[in-house]
């Protein structure tokens, strides 16, 4: 479980299937779940200096890259493409 410094929520990555993010409030109460964007499977969490990211590995390349970092938008329970992942 890793803390997202932006939302303050705790985040875990369930590896089942294409992966799913599980978000919890600081007291441990479930807050939200986030599925990968269509065409992606989630690989692992990345602690960037200013935020928590998740790597999504894609079926097809976007701008030449199959793998991308996605930022967590906890308020919308969504993932936002942030930049290429190696």
């Amino acid at each position: 479980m890793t803390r997202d410094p932006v939302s303050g929520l705790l985040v875990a990555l369930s590896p089942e299937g294409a992966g799913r993010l599980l978000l919890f409030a600081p007291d441990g109460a479930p807050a939200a779940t986030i599925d990968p964007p269509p065409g992606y499977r989630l690989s692992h969490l990345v602690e960037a200096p200013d935020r928590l990211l998740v790597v999504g590995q894609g079926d097809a390349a976007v701008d030449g890259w199959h793998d991308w970092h996605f930022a967590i938008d906890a308020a919308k329970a969504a993932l936002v493409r942030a930049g290429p992942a190696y």
Partner: protein
Amino acid sequence: MPMLQRCLIALLFLFAIPVSVVAQPAPAAAAASAAHAGWWADQRWRYATDGEAEAAYQALVARESPWPEWHQSHLVSLPAGLRFQMAIAPGQPTDRPGGFGTFDRIPSVEFVRMSLAVKTAWKPAIDRVVTYEITAPLIADVGTVGPQIDVPADLYLPGGGSQFQMMIPAAERMQHLRVVEVRAIR
């Protein structure tokens, strides 16, 4: 024009040619960025003018192509039995490999940053190297690692190592691979 004047002009011209030929063009923003100066020292020669070189530098910063500008896409079928290495991140399962591998031995994180030109933003942390073996033919683009500019760190990453990019859906990667060895690196 008097003869003496013509001779003086000719002499000035003769002295001016070698100076203009050997003079090294200076990077426009060398004082502002060590990364820019490093790139300029290595790459300026590829371009006819300072303007073209600067445009190529700005394109690299903006587009972050993992391939050198001169790369021609070269899709091949990597054969079963071929081994390669890949640097992976803390928490990254070995059955979730990234899309790039190298045929070089990866001795350290420094090698990953400098010779494989992996920007910090692309992989903030690295803790292991996995040796994979190809078990079924794998379509990949193969070539040389291109240089990168790590802007936040003000670092020029020269690249130059070998690399290939898997050209199959990510979910199918492990259908073509097996893990041979995992070791820690620093």
